[in-house]
């Protein structure tokens, strides 16, 4: 892998982890506000939102950390891709339904109301692509490592 590819991968990794940590910490601190934000989407039963509000921020935080732990990089990148793909889809559905609600993406501490929803979708889509790129590279590296461990044919 070339040096520029390594640099790009590192930049992507740090950016994705930073977004995930920035999103997770306020929600871990105030899960009640996050549960209300989830309710506003009107997409799941109200009784589910407390559990999701409790689990999702931790999943974001652990995913961010997993991106830097050598033996968790593959699953971390796969989870990051899945999470951002889900957020992109959720924002797109919200836009299609014509809902004008607070995103809740970064908890109650940060308001994203001023950011038009199509910008939010675009940003999430770009991060999904970056995460997918890292994910692909991680799986490729893992497969190469596996192949190199196999006994050579005479």
């Amino acid at each position: 892998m070339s040096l520029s590819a390594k640099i790009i991968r590192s930049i992507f990794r740090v950016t994705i982890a930073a977004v995930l940590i920035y999103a997770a910490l306020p929600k871990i601190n105030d899960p009640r506000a996050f549960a209300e934000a989830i309710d506003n989407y009107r997409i799941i039963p109200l009784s589910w939102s407390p559990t999701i509000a409790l689990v999702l921020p931790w999943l974001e935080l652990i995913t961010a950390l997993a991106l830097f732990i050598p033996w968790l990089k593959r699953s971390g990148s796969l989870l990051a891709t899945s999470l951002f793909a889900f957020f992109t889809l959720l924002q797109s559905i919200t836009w299609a339904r014509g809902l004008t609600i607070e995103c809740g993406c970064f908890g109650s501490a940060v308001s994203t109301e001023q950011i038009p929803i199509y910008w939010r979708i675009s940003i999430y889509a770009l991060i999904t692509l970056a995460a997918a790129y890292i994910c692909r590279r991680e799986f490729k590296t893992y497969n190469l490592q596996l192949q190199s461990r196999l006994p050579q044919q005479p």
Partner: protein
Amino acid sequence: MAIIREFLIIALLCSIGVAYSLLSGKAPKYTELEAGAILFQDASALEPIWIDARSRQDFEQSHLPAAIWYDSNPESESLLTIFEQWFENPRVIVVYCSDPRCKLSQQVAEELRNNIEGAEIYHLAGGWQP
């Protein structure tokens, strides 16, 4: 198989985090809405007639936009004012007080239901605080 092991480790770490949140008392709770109650976000979306069941002093300090203060005095004209507003533009009526345990909004909502026939009347779940 290795990827499954990785996911299990992530799930375990998440569980530890969730356990921490639960033990620190930050976990949100789901409470079933009682009959006649409405959540603030639902009520706001309906652009209702807001009725403030708190004290006059609290109302004067702050209240929801265009809210009507409800005077429980039988000689007051609160009921008439509310009826006029509703009659001019029939819409949902939501009564609020300040505290989640405050029963006043429920009592006022019940009183309004008895007096304004055909109106959709709720009390605000959790109350409203400025």
